[in-house]
Protein backbone atom coordinates (compact mmCIF):
# COMPACT_ATOMS: atom_id res chain seq x y z
CA UNK A 1 0.00 0.00 0.00
CA UNK A 2 2.66 2.43 1.05
CA UNK A 3 4.72 1.55 -1.95
CA UNK A 4 1.83 2.28 -4.25
CA UNK A 5 1.35 5.63 -2.61
CA UNK A 6 5.04 6.27 -2.87
CA UNK A 7 5.07 5.52 -6.56
CA UNK A 8 2.00 7.67 -7.00
CA UNK A 9 3.80 10.44 -5.20
CA UNK A 10 6.74 10.15 -7.54
CA UNK A 11 4.48 10.39 -10.55
CA UNK A 12 2.69 13.42 -9.14
CA UNK A 13 6.07 14.86 -8.37
CA UNK A 14 7.15 14.44 -11.95
CA UNK A 15 4.08 16.24 -13.19
CA UNK A 16 4.52 19.02 -10.67
CA UNK A 17 8.16 19.30 -11.57
CA UNK A 18 7.26 20.01 -15.15
CA UNK A 19 5.24 23.00 -13.98
CA UNK A 20 7.81 24.07 -11.44
CA UNK A 21 10.56 24.32 -14.00
CA UNK A 22 8.58 27.01 -15.73
CA UNK A 23 8.01 28.93 -12.50
CA UNK A 24 11.66 28.73 -11.73
CA UNK A 25 12.69 29.99 -15.15
CA UNK A 26 10.29 32.91 -14.93
CA UNK A 27 11.47 33.91 -11.52
CA UNK A 28 15.14 33.37 -12.19
CA UNK A 29 15.15 35.49 -15.32
CA UNK A 30 12.41 38.05 -15.15
CA UNK A 31 12.14 38.07 -11.37
CA UNK A 32 8.39 37.65 -11.56
CA UNK A 33 6.32 35.11 -9.70
CA UNK A 34 4.31 33.99 -12.67
CA UNK A 35 1.06 32.86 -11.06
CA UNK A 36 -0.34 32.38 -14.53
CA UNK A 37 2.04 29.58 -15.34
CA UNK A 38 -0.17 26.76 -14.12
CA UNK A 39 -3.13 28.26 -15.90
CA UNK A 40 -1.10 28.22 -19.09
CA UNK A 41 -0.55 24.54 -18.49
CA UNK A 42 -4.25 23.84 -18.15
CA UNK A 43 -4.93 25.95 -21.20
CA UNK A 44 -2.48 23.75 -23.07
CA UNK A 45 -4.24 20.64 -21.86
CA UNK A 46 -7.49 22.16 -22.95
CA UNK A 47 -6.08 22.94 -26.35
CA UNK A 48 -5.04 19.37 -26.77
CA UNK A 49 -8.46 18.10 -25.81
CA UNK A 50 -10.06 20.54 -28.16
CA UNK A 51 -8.02 19.59 -31.16
CA UNK A 52 -8.18 15.91 -30.63
CA UNK A 53 -11.29 14.92 -28.80
CA UNK A 54 -14.12 17.20 -29.69
CA UNK A 55 -17.63 15.86 -29.45
CA UNK A 56 -18.67 14.89 -25.98
CA UNK A 57 -15.94 16.56 -24.07
CA UNK A 58 -16.03 19.89 -25.77
CA UNK A 59 -18.64 22.53 -25.09
CA UNK A 60 -20.17 24.56 -27.88
CA UNK A 61 -18.19 27.72 -27.69
CA UNK A 62 -14.91 26.12 -26.86
CA UNK A 63 -13.52 26.04 -30.40
CA UNK A 64 -14.26 29.71 -30.88
CA UNK A 65 -12.89 30.87 -27.59
CA UNK A 66 -9.81 28.71 -27.67
CA UNK A 67 -9.07 29.78 -31.22
CA UNK A 68 -9.31 33.39 -30.14
CA UNK A 69 -7.07 32.83 -27.19
CA UNK A 70 -4.40 30.95 -29.03
CA UNK A 71 -4.59 33.13 -32.08
CA UNK A 72 -4.01 36.20 -29.95
CA UNK A 73 -1.30 34.39 -28.05
CA UNK A 74 0.44 33.43 -31.26
CA UNK A 75 0.33 37.04 -32.39
CA UNK A 76 1.85 38.36 -29.19
CA UNK A 77 4.28 35.52 -28.90
CA UNK A 78 5.72 35.89 -32.36
CA UNK A 79 6.22 39.61 -31.81
CA UNK A 80 8.87 38.82 -29.27
CA UNK A 81 11.03 37.01 -31.75
CA UNK A 82 11.14 39.17 -34.76
CA UNK A 83 13.49 41.89 -35.76
CA UNK A 84 13.29 45.59 -35.50
CA UNK A 85 11.07 46.54 -38.39
CA UNK A 86 7.80 47.38 -36.70
CA UNK A 87 5.49 47.07 -39.67
CA UNK A 88 6.90 43.80 -40.93
CA UNK A 89 6.89 42.45 -37.41
CA UNK A 90 3.24 43.20 -36.93
CA UNK A 91 2.22 41.82 -40.30
CA UNK A 92 3.97 38.51 -39.83
CA UNK A 93 2.74 38.15 -36.28
CA UNK A 94 -0.79 39.01 -37.34
CA UNK A 95 -0.57 36.47 -40.13
CA UNK A 96 0.57 33.72 -37.84
CA UNK A 97 -2.07 34.67 -35.31
CA UNK A 98 -4.85 34.50 -37.85
CA UNK A 99 -3.54 31.23 -39.23
CA UNK A 100 -3.57 29.74 -35.75
CA UNK A 101 -7.08 31.00 -35.19
CA UNK A 102 -8.42 29.52 -38.38
CA UNK A 103 -6.55 26.26 -38.06
CA UNK A 104 -7.73 25.70 -34.51
CA UNK A 105 -11.29 26.40 -35.43
CA UNK A 106 -11.26 24.21 -38.46
CA UNK A 107 -9.41 21.28 -37.00
CA UNK A 108 -11.20 21.06 -33.67
CA UNK A 109 -11.86 17.51 -32.74
CA UNK A 110 -10.42 16.18 -35.91
CA UNK A 111 -6.73 15.90 -35.32
CA UNK A 112 -5.00 12.67 -34.50
CA UNK A 113 -3.71 12.56 -30.97
CA UNK A 114 -0.02 12.58 -31.68
CA UNK A 115 -0.24 15.58 -33.98
CA UNK A 116 -2.44 17.47 -31.56
CA UNK A 117 -0.04 16.79 -28.70
CA UNK A 118 2.92 17.95 -30.74
CA UNK A 119 1.13 21.06 -31.94
CA UNK A 120 0.02 21.95 -28.44
CA UNK A 121 3.60 22.31 -27.29
CA UNK A 122 4.74 25.33 -29.29
CA UNK A 123 1.35 26.98 -29.06
CA UNK A 124 1.19 26.70 -25.30
CA UNK A 125 4.73 27.94 -25.15
CA UNK A 126 3.51 30.82 -27.27
CA UNK A 127 0.80 31.52 -24.71
CA UNK A 128 3.45 31.70 -22.01
CA UNK A 129 5.52 34.09 -24.11
CA UNK A 130 2.39 36.12 -24.79
CA UNK A 131 1.81 36.66 -21.08
CA UNK A 132 5.42 37.76 -20.81
CA UNK A 133 5.25 40.08 -23.77
CA UNK A 134 1.85 41.49 -23.02
CA UNK A 135 2.17 42.04 -19.31
CA UNK A 136 5.53 41.45 -17.70
CA UNK A 137 7.78 43.00 -20.27
CA UNK A 138 6.05 46.39 -20.38
CA UNK A 139 6.17 46.53 -16.61
CA UNK A 140 9.82 45.57 -16.46
CA UNK A 141 10.66 48.12 -19.10
CA UNK A 142 9.05 50.87 -17.11
CA UNK A 143 10.75 49.77 -13.92
CA UNK A 144 7.44 49.18 -12.22
CA UNK A 145 7.45 48.63 -8.46
CA UNK A 146 7.35 45.00 -7.37
CA UNK A 147 3.87 45.39 -5.97
CA UNK A 148 2.54 46.28 -9.41
CA UNK A 149 4.24 43.31 -11.02
CA UNK A 150 2.86 40.91 -8.41
CA UNK A 151 -0.65 42.30 -8.73
CA UNK A 152 -0.47 42.11 -12.50
CA UNK A 153 0.72 38.51 -12.27
CA UNK A 154 -2.23 37.64 -10.08
CA UNK A 155 -4.55 39.46 -12.45
CA UNK A 156 -3.25 37.56 -15.46
CA UNK A 157 -3.65 34.27 -13.64
CA UNK A 158 -7.22 35.01 -12.63
CA UNK A 159 -8.04 36.31 -16.08
CA UNK A 160 -6.74 33.21 -17.77
CA UNK A 161 -8.45 30.94 -15.30
CA UNK A 162 -11.75 32.77 -15.68
CA UNK A 163 -11.44 32.62 -19.43
CA UNK A 164 -10.92 28.89 -19.29
CA UNK A 165 -13.82 28.51 -16.89
CA UNK A 166 -16.06 30.45 -19.22
CA UNK A 167 -14.90 28.42 -22.19
CA UNK A 168 -15.11 25.00 -20.66
CA UNK A 169 -17.59 25.48 -17.85
CA UNK A 170 -16.64 24.47 -14.36
CA UNK A 171 -17.44 20.78 -14.48
CA UNK A 172 -14.92 18.17 -15.23
CA UNK A 173 -15.13 16.94 -18.76
CA UNK A 174 -14.32 13.33 -19.09
CA UNK A 175 -13.47 12.04 -22.49
CA UNK A 176 -14.25 8.57 -23.64
CA UNK A 177 -11.58 6.16 -22.58
CA UNK A 178 -11.97 4.06 -25.67
CA UNK A 179 -10.64 6.88 -27.82
CA UNK A 180 -7.30 6.54 -26.14
CA UNK A 181 -4.78 3.93 -27.19
CA UNK A 182 -5.01 0.82 -25.06
CA UNK A 183 -1.75 1.29 -23.27
CA UNK A 184 -3.01 4.46 -21.66
CA UNK A 185 -5.90 2.79 -19.91
CA UNK A 186 -5.02 0.76 -16.89
CA UNK A 187 -7.09 -2.38 -16.63
CA UNK A 188 -6.93 -5.63 -14.74
CA UNK A 189 -4.24 -7.88 -16.13
CA UNK A 190 -5.26 -11.51 -16.67
CA UNK A 191 -3.00 -14.37 -15.74
CA UNK A 192 -0.21 -15.64 -17.85
CA UNK A 193 0.33 -12.51 -19.89
CA UNK A 194 3.87 -11.36 -20.57
CA UNK A 195 5.13 -8.10 -19.08
CA UNK A 196 5.37 -6.37 -22.40
CA UNK A 197 1.92 -7.43 -23.47
CA UNK A 198 0.51 -6.36 -20.15
CA UNK A 199 2.06 -2.97 -20.59
CA UNK A 200 0.82 -2.42 -24.11
CA UNK A 201 -2.56 -4.01 -24.11
CA UNK A 202 -3.70 -3.65 -20.56
CA UNK A 203 -1.91 -0.50 -19.68
CA UNK A 204 -0.22 -1.84 -16.58
CA UNK A 205 3.35 -2.92 -16.08
CA UNK A 206 3.69 -5.49 -13.33
CA UNK A 207 6.73 -4.86 -11.17
CA UNK A 208 6.52 -7.51 -8.52
CA UNK A 209 3.87 -9.98 -7.52
CA UNK A 210 1.81 -7.45 -5.67
CA UNK A 211 2.79 -4.13 -7.17
CA UNK A 212 2.46 -2.73 -10.61
CA UNK A 213 2.57 0.62 -12.21
CA UNK A 214 0.29 1.93 -14.89
CA UNK A 215 2.16 2.28 -18.16
CA UNK A 216 1.11 5.87 -18.44
CA UNK A 217 2.62 6.70 -15.08
CA UNK A 218 5.83 5.01 -16.08
CA UNK A 219 5.84 7.02 -19.26
CA UNK A 220 5.33 10.19 -17.28
CA UNK A 221 8.38 9.53 -15.19
CA UNK A 222 10.40 8.62 -18.27
CA UNK A 223 9.33 11.75 -20.11
CA UNK A 224 10.13 13.83 -17.07
CA UNK A 225 13.63 12.36 -16.89
CA UNK A 226 14.06 13.00 -20.60
CA UNK A 227 12.99 16.61 -20.23
CA UNK A 228 15.28 17.22 -17.31
CA UNK A 229 18.21 15.64 -19.11
CA UNK A 230 17.45 17.66 -22.21
CA UNK A 231 17.26 20.82 -20.19
CA UNK A 232 20.51 20.03 -18.48
CA UNK A 233 22.21 19.48 -21.80
CA UNK A 234 20.71 22.67 -23.14
CA UNK A 235 22.09 24.71 -20.31
CA UNK A 236 25.44 23.11 -20.55
CA UNK A 237 25.98 23.24 -24.27
CA UNK A 238 23.94 25.95 -25.83
CA UNK A 239 24.91 29.57 -26.33
CA UNK A 240 21.32 30.65 -26.11
CA UNK A 241 21.19 29.13 -22.67
CA UNK A 242 24.29 31.11 -21.72
CA UNK A 243 22.53 34.25 -22.77
CA UNK A 244 19.57 33.34 -20.58
CA UNK A 245 21.77 32.75 -17.55
CA UNK A 246 23.69 35.94 -18.25
CA UNK A 247 20.50 38.00 -18.52
CA UNK A 248 19.42 36.59 -15.17
CA UNK A 249 22.75 37.19 -13.45
CA UNK A 250 23.53 40.69 -14.60
CA UNK A 251 20.93 42.12 -16.95
CA UNK A 252 22.63 45.46 -17.32
CA UNK A 253 25.96 43.95 -18.23
CA UNK A 254 24.22 41.54 -20.61
CA UNK A 255 22.60 44.45 -22.34
CA UNK A 256 25.94 46.21 -22.49
CA UNK A 257 27.32 43.15 -24.29
CA UNK A 258 24.71 43.55 -26.96
CA UNK A 259 22.57 40.66 -25.77
CA UNK A 260 18.92 41.36 -26.59
CA UNK A 261 17.79 40.78 -23.05
CA UNK A 262 14.10 41.10 -23.74
CA UNK A 263 14.17 38.53 -26.48
CA UNK A 264 16.23 36.23 -24.31
CA UNK A 265 13.76 36.48 -21.46
CA UNK A 266 11.01 35.66 -23.91
CA UNK A 267 12.94 32.53 -24.83
CA UNK A 268 13.10 31.53 -21.19
CA UNK A 269 9.34 31.87 -20.94
CA UNK A 270 8.98 29.88 -24.14
CA UNK A 271 10.97 27.01 -22.73
CA UNK A 272 9.05 27.10 -19.49
CA UNK A 273 5.79 27.16 -21.39
CA UNK A 274 6.77 24.30 -23.67
CA UNK A 275 7.68 22.12 -20.73
CA UNK A 276 4.46 23.10 -18.99
CA UNK A 277 2.60 22.08 -22.10
CA UNK A 278 4.09 18.62 -21.91
CA UNK A 279 3.05 18.57 -18.29
CA UNK A 280 -0.45 19.69 -19.19
CA UNK A 281 -0.81 17.00 -21.80
CA UNK A 282 0.31 14.28 -19.43
CA UNK A 283 -1.89 15.67 -16.67
CA UNK A 284 -4.95 15.60 -18.86
CA UNK A 285 -4.17 12.09 -20.03
CA UNK A 286 -3.63 10.85 -16.53
CA UNK A 287 -6.86 12.23 -15.19
CA UNK A 288 -8.68 11.28 -18.38
CA UNK A 289 -10.57 14.52 -18.12
CA UNK A 290 -10.21 18.22 -18.28
CA UNK A 291 -10.94 19.99 -15.06
CA UNK A 292 -10.72 23.75 -15.55
CA UNK A 293 -10.83 24.41 -11.84
CA UNK A 294 -7.78 22.24 -11.59
CA UNK A 295 -5.71 25.11 -12.83
CA UNK A 296 -5.49 26.90 -9.60
CA UNK A 297 -4.82 24.19 -7.12
CA UNK A 298 -1.91 22.52 -8.85
CA UNK A 299 -0.78 26.02 -9.62
CA UNK A 300 -0.49 27.05 -6.02
CA UNK A 301 0.73 23.58 -5.23
CA UNK A 302 3.48 23.83 -7.78
CA UNK A 303 4.28 27.26 -6.50
CA UNK A 304 4.49 25.97 -2.96
CA UNK A 305 6.76 23.24 -4.27
CA UNK A 306 9.04 25.83 -5.80
CA UNK A 307 9.22 27.76 -2.58
CA UNK A 308 10.03 24.57 -0.73
CA UNK A 309 12.91 23.85 -2.99
CA UNK A 310 14.02 27.42 -3.37
CA UNK A 311 12.46 29.62 -5.94
CA UNK A 312 14.80 30.59 -8.73
CA UNK A 313 16.80 27.40 -8.62
CA UNK A 314 15.96 24.73 -11.16
CA UNK A 315 17.31 21.97 -9.00
CA UNK A 316 15.33 23.29 -6.08
CA UNK A 317 12.17 23.41 -8.15
CA UNK A 318 12.49 19.76 -9.08
CA UNK A 319 13.34 18.61 -5.56
CA UNK A 320 10.51 20.69 -4.13
CA UNK A 321 8.13 19.19 -6.65
CA UNK A 322 9.01 15.66 -5.68
CA UNK A 323 8.74 16.43 -2.01
CA UNK A 324 5.35 17.96 -2.57
CA UNK A 325 4.19 15.05 -4.70
CA UNK A 326 5.22 12.60 -2.04
CA UNK A 327 3.63 14.59 0.73
CA UNK A 328 0.30 14.96 -1.02
CA UNK A 329 0.32 11.31 -1.86
CA UNK A 330 1.43 9.92 1.46
CA UNK A 331 -0.21 12.35 3.86
CA UNK A 332 -3.73 10.99 3.46
CA UNK A 333 -2.41 7.68 4.68
CA UNK A 334 -1.45 9.10 8.03
CA UNK A 335 -4.38 8.49 10.30
CA UNK A 336 -3.94 11.74 12.18
CA UNK A 337 -7.59 12.18 12.99
CA UNK A 338 -7.76 8.72 14.49
CA UNK A 339 -4.85 9.43 16.75
CA UNK A 340 -6.31 12.71 17.91
CA UNK A 341 -9.72 11.24 18.50
CA UNK A 342 -8.15 8.51 20.54
CA UNK A 343 -6.49 11.03 22.80
CA UNK A 344 -9.26 13.51 23.42
CA UNK A 345 -12.52 13.14 25.36
CA UNK A 346 -15.58 12.40 23.31
CA UNK A 347 -17.45 15.67 23.58
CA UNK A 348 -14.45 17.66 22.40
CA UNK A 349 -14.26 15.64 19.26
CA UNK A 350 -17.55 17.15 18.19
CA UNK A 351 -16.04 20.53 17.77
CA UNK A 352 -12.84 19.64 16.07
CA UNK A 353 -12.28 20.30 12.44
CA UNK A 354 -11.82 17.32 10.27
CA UNK A 355 -8.30 16.21 10.78
CA UNK A 356 -8.33 13.70 8.05
CA UNK A 357 -5.31 14.59 6.07
CA UNK A 358 -6.93 13.66 2.83
CA UNK A 359 -9.16 16.68 3.22
CA UNK A 360 -6.22 18.77 4.12
CA UNK A 361 -3.78 17.45 1.56
CA UNK A 362 -3.38 20.77 -0.15
CA UNK A 363 -3.49 22.48 3.18
CA UNK A 364 -0.51 20.54 4.36
CA UNK A 365 1.50 21.80 1.45
CA UNK A 366 0.37 25.38 1.95
CA UNK A 367 1.18 25.11 5.63
CA UNK A 368 4.57 23.71 4.75
CA UNK A 369 5.15 26.50 2.27
CA UNK A 370 4.20 29.07 4.89
CA UNK A 371 6.55 27.52 7.38
CA UNK A 372 9.38 27.44 4.89
CA UNK A 373 8.88 31.09 3.99
CA UNK A 374 8.77 32.04 7.62
CA UNK A 375 11.86 30.21 8.62
CA UNK A 376 13.94 29.58 5.58
CA UNK A 377 12.80 31.78 2.74
CA UNK A 378 15.54 30.73 0.39
CA UNK A 379 14.17 27.24 0.43
CA UNK A 380 16.41 24.26 0.44
CA UNK A 381 18.58 25.32 -2.44
CA UNK A 382 19.95 28.64 -3.53
CA UNK A 383 20.02 29.86 -7.10
Amino acid at each position, binding site marked *: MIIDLFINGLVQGSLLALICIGYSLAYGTAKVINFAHADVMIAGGGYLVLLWSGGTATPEYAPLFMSMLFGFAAYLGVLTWLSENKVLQNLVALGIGLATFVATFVFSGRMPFALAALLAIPLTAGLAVATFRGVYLPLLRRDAPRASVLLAALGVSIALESYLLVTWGSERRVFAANRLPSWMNAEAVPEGVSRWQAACQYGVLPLTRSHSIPTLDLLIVIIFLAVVTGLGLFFRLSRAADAIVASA*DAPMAARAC*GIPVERVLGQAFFIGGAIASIGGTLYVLRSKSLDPMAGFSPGILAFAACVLGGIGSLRGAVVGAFLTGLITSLAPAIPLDQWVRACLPVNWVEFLPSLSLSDWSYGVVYALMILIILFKPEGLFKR
Partner: protein
Amino acid sequence: MSILLELRKLESGNWGRQVSFDLQAGEFVLLLGRNSSGKTTLLNTIAGLLPVRSGQLLVGGQDVSHMNTVGRTQCGVRLAPQGRQIFSRLSVRRNLLLGAYGNGADHEVRRNLTWILGVFPDLREKLDAVASSLSGGQQTMLNIGRALMGNPRLLLLDEPTLGLDPQNTKKLIDALQQVRRERQVGILVAEQSGPFVRVFPERVILMVGGEIVFDGPLAQATEERKLIEIFP
Protein backbone atom coordinates in the same frame (compact mmCIF):
# COMPACT_ATOMS: atom_id res chain seq x y z
CA MET B 1 42.37 61.59 -36.82
CA SER B 2 38.67 61.14 -37.10
CA ILE B 3 36.19 62.05 -34.47
CA LEU B 4 34.95 58.89 -32.89
CA LEU B 5 32.49 60.14 -30.31
CA GLU B 6 30.66 63.41 -30.30
CA LEU B 7 28.25 64.69 -27.71
CA ARG B 8 26.23 67.73 -28.68
CA LYS B 9 24.30 69.28 -25.79
CA LEU B 10 23.49 65.83 -24.57
CA GLU B 11 21.08 65.69 -21.70
CA SER B 12 20.77 62.55 -19.71
CA GLY B 13 19.71 61.75 -16.21
CA ASN B 14 17.65 64.18 -14.25
CA TRP B 15 19.99 67.06 -13.56
CA GLY B 16 18.64 69.14 -16.38
CA ARG B 17 22.18 69.93 -17.51
CA GLN B 18 23.82 69.39 -20.84
CA VAL B 19 27.14 67.98 -21.86
CA SER B 20 29.21 68.48 -25.01
CA PHE B 21 32.61 67.15 -25.96
CA ASP B 22 34.30 64.96 -28.53
CA LEU B 23 36.72 62.13 -28.52
CA GLN B 24 39.15 61.08 -31.24
CA ALA B 25 39.96 57.55 -32.23
CA GLY B 26 42.83 56.32 -30.12
CA GLU B 27 42.39 59.04 -27.53
CA PHE B 28 42.38 58.28 -23.83
CA VAL B 29 40.13 60.50 -21.79
CA LEU B 30 39.62 60.44 -18.07
CA LEU B 31 36.23 61.47 -16.73
CA LEU B 32 36.70 62.64 -13.17
CA GLY B 33 34.14 63.51 -10.56
CA ARG B 34 32.77 62.55 -7.21
CA ASN B 35 29.74 60.37 -6.59
CA SER B 36 26.56 61.75 -8.05
CA SER B 37 28.48 63.93 -10.47
CA GLY B 38 26.91 62.24 -13.46
CA LYS B 39 29.79 60.13 -14.72
CA THR B 40 28.00 56.82 -14.57
CA THR B 41 24.83 58.28 -16.00
CA LEU B 42 26.78 59.71 -18.89
CA LEU B 43 28.58 56.47 -19.67
CA ASN B 44 25.34 54.52 -19.44
CA THR B 45 23.71 56.94 -21.81
CA ILE B 46 26.51 56.66 -24.35
CA ALA B 47 26.25 52.88 -24.13
CA GLY B 48 22.51 52.96 -24.67
CA LEU B 49 21.37 51.77 -21.27
CA LEU B 50 19.74 55.11 -20.51
CA PRO B 51 17.72 57.20 -22.92
CA VAL B 52 18.91 60.46 -24.42
CA ARG B 53 16.63 63.21 -23.20
CA SER B 54 17.75 65.86 -25.58
CA GLY B 55 20.69 66.68 -27.76
CA GLN B 56 22.66 64.37 -29.97
CA LEU B 57 25.08 61.54 -29.66
CA LEU B 58 27.22 60.59 -32.62
CA VAL B 59 29.54 57.63 -33.00
CA GLY B 60 31.84 57.70 -36.00
CA GLY B 61 29.70 60.44 -37.47
CA GLN B 62 26.50 58.43 -37.19
CA ASP B 63 23.64 59.68 -35.04
CA VAL B 64 22.94 56.93 -32.55
CA SER B 65 20.85 58.98 -30.14
CA HIS B 66 17.80 56.82 -30.63
CA MET B 67 19.43 53.50 -31.09
CA ASN B 68 19.09 50.88 -28.42
CA THR B 69 21.99 49.05 -26.81
CA VAL B 70 22.08 46.26 -29.35
CA GLY B 71 22.49 48.77 -32.14
CA ARG B 72 25.14 50.70 -30.26
CA THR B 73 27.24 47.62 -29.65
CA GLN B 74 27.10 46.97 -33.33
CA CYS B 75 28.37 50.50 -33.89
CA GLY B 76 31.37 49.56 -31.81
CA VAL B 77 30.50 51.04 -28.42
CA ARG B 78 31.18 48.76 -25.48
CA LEU B 79 30.77 49.46 -21.80
CA ALA B 80 32.37 47.67 -18.88
CA PRO B 81 29.81 48.65 -16.24
CA GLN B 82 30.42 49.75 -12.70
CA GLY B 83 30.76 47.09 -10.07
CA ARG B 84 32.05 44.42 -12.42
CA GLN B 85 28.72 42.72 -13.05
CA ILE B 86 30.12 39.51 -14.35
CA PHE B 87 27.91 36.55 -15.15
CA SER B 88 28.64 34.76 -11.92
CA ARG B 89 27.23 31.37 -12.79
CA LEU B 90 29.08 30.98 -16.06
CA SER B 91 32.70 30.10 -16.63
CA VAL B 92 35.28 32.73 -17.53
CA ARG B 93 35.41 31.44 -21.08
CA ARG B 94 31.67 31.75 -21.50
CA ASN B 95 31.68 35.20 -20.01
CA LEU B 96 34.23 36.27 -22.58
CA LEU B 97 32.45 34.55 -25.43
CA LEU B 98 29.23 36.29 -24.51
CA GLY B 99 31.13 39.51 -24.83
CA ALA B 100 31.33 38.79 -28.52
CA TYR B 101 27.61 38.09 -28.83
CA GLY B 102 26.46 38.68 -32.33
CA ASN B 103 29.79 40.15 -33.30
CA GLY B 104 31.80 38.50 -35.96
CA ALA B 105 32.55 35.03 -37.18
CA ASP B 106 33.90 32.24 -35.04
CA HIS B 107 37.51 32.48 -36.08
CA GLU B 108 37.56 36.20 -35.45
CA VAL B 109 36.15 35.62 -32.04
CA ARG B 110 38.79 33.03 -31.29
CA ARG B 111 41.52 35.37 -32.40
CA ASN B 112 40.15 38.07 -30.17
CA LEU B 113 40.03 35.67 -27.28
CA THR B 114 43.66 34.76 -27.74
CA TRP B 115 44.66 38.40 -27.86
CA ILE B 116 42.66 39.26 -24.75
CA LEU B 117 44.16 36.37 -22.83
CA GLY B 118 47.48 37.85 -23.79
CA VAL B 119 46.49 41.21 -22.37
CA PHE B 120 45.08 39.68 -19.18
CA PRO B 121 47.25 36.65 -18.45
CA ASP B 122 45.51 36.04 -15.13
CA LEU B 123 42.39 35.04 -16.96
CA ARG B 124 44.15 32.38 -18.96
CA GLU B 125 44.73 30.20 -15.90
CA LYS B 126 41.15 30.57 -14.79
CA LEU B 127 39.59 30.08 -18.19
CA ASP B 128 37.27 27.26 -17.16
CA ALA B 129 36.66 28.32 -13.59
CA VAL B 130 33.26 29.67 -12.67
CA ALA B 131 33.31 33.43 -12.64
CA SER B 132 32.09 33.85 -9.08
CA SER B 133 35.24 32.17 -7.80
CA LEU B 134 37.51 34.87 -9.15
CA SER B 135 39.05 37.49 -6.94
CA GLY B 136 37.99 41.11 -7.17
CA GLY B 137 40.90 42.08 -9.36
CA GLN B 138 40.37 39.17 -11.70
CA GLN B 139 36.69 40.00 -11.99
CA THR B 140 37.59 43.51 -13.03
CA MET B 141 39.88 42.09 -15.70
CA LEU B 142 37.07 39.82 -16.81
CA ASN B 143 34.67 42.71 -17.03
CA ILE B 144 37.02 44.69 -19.25
CA GLY B 145 38.08 41.66 -21.27
CA ARG B 146 34.45 40.90 -21.93
CA ALA B 147 33.92 44.40 -23.23
CA LEU B 148 36.98 44.11 -25.45
CA MET B 149 35.73 40.86 -26.94
CA GLY B 150 33.22 42.90 -28.84
CA ASN B 151 36.05 44.48 -30.80
CA PRO B 152 34.88 47.96 -29.95
CA ARG B 153 35.96 51.25 -31.47
CA LEU B 154 35.01 53.01 -28.28
CA LEU B 155 35.61 51.45 -24.89
CA LEU B 156 33.84 52.86 -21.85
CA LEU B 157 35.06 51.92 -18.40
CA ASP B 158 33.08 52.83 -15.31
CA GLU B 159 35.23 53.08 -12.19
CA PRO B 160 37.42 50.06 -12.96
CA THR B 161 39.69 50.59 -9.97
CA LEU B 162 36.86 50.49 -7.45
CA GLY B 163 37.99 48.31 -4.60
CA LEU B 164 41.14 47.27 -6.41
CA ASP B 165 44.44 46.92 -4.58
CA PRO B 166 47.56 48.68 -5.93
CA GLN B 167 49.01 45.56 -7.51
CA ASN B 168 45.95 44.86 -9.58
CA THR B 169 45.60 48.52 -10.39
CA LYS B 170 49.05 48.43 -11.88
CA LYS B 171 48.17 45.35 -13.92
CA LEU B 172 45.07 47.10 -15.13
CA ILE B 173 47.00 50.17 -16.16
CA ASP B 174 49.54 48.04 -18.03
CA ALA B 175 46.75 46.21 -19.79
CA LEU B 176 45.08 49.41 -20.88
CA GLN B 177 48.33 50.77 -22.18
CA GLN B 178 48.80 47.59 -24.17
CA VAL B 179 45.29 47.88 -25.59
CA ARG B 180 45.99 51.42 -26.55
CA ARG B 181 49.18 50.47 -28.29
CA GLU B 182 47.87 47.51 -30.20
CA ARG B 183 44.39 48.66 -31.14
CA GLN B 184 43.33 52.14 -32.04
CA VAL B 185 40.53 52.15 -29.51
CA GLY B 186 39.11 55.32 -28.06
CA ILE B 187 38.92 54.90 -24.30
CA LEU B 188 36.78 56.88 -21.91
CA VAL B 189 37.28 56.04 -18.27
CA ALA B 190 35.18 57.35 -15.40
CA GLU B 191 37.14 57.50 -12.20
CA GLN B 192 37.17 59.05 -8.80
CA SER B 193 40.72 58.68 -7.70
CA GLY B 194 44.28 59.25 -8.60
CA PRO B 195 46.38 56.35 -9.89
CA PHE B 196 45.06 56.64 -13.43
CA VAL B 197 45.53 60.34 -13.55
CA ARG B 198 49.24 60.07 -13.24
CA VAL B 199 49.55 57.56 -16.01
CA PHE B 200 47.19 59.06 -18.56
CA PRO B 201 47.47 62.76 -18.10
CA GLU B 202 46.73 63.94 -21.62
CA ARG B 203 43.13 64.80 -21.12
CA VAL B 204 40.81 64.98 -18.14
CA ILE B 205 37.19 66.03 -18.07
CA LEU B 206 35.87 67.14 -14.71
CA MET B 207 32.21 66.71 -13.94
CA VAL B 208 30.28 68.30 -11.14
CA GLY B 209 26.54 68.01 -10.73
CA GLY B 210 25.95 66.65 -14.20
CA GLU B 211 27.91 69.21 -16.13
CA ILE B 212 31.46 69.60 -17.33
CA VAL B 213 33.54 72.15 -15.51
CA PHE B 214 36.88 71.47 -17.15
CA ASP B 215 38.18 69.74 -20.24
CA GLY B 216 41.87 69.67 -21.00
CA PRO B 217 45.27 68.31 -20.00
CA LEU B 218 45.95 67.42 -16.41
CA ALA B 219 48.73 69.92 -16.06
CA GLN B 220 46.36 72.72 -16.89
CA ALA B 221 43.82 71.42 -14.40
CA THR B 222 46.40 71.38 -11.68
CA GLU B 223 47.48 74.87 -12.48
CA GLU B 224 43.99 76.20 -12.44
CA ARG B 225 43.35 74.51 -9.12
CA LYS B 226 40.40 72.69 -10.61
CA LEU B 227 41.17 69.43 -8.90
CA ILE B 228 40.36 70.94 -5.55
CA GLU B 229 36.74 70.43 -6.50
CA ILE B 230 37.41 66.79 -5.96
CA PHE B 231 39.24 66.81 -2.68
CA PRO B 232 41.69 65.93 -1.62
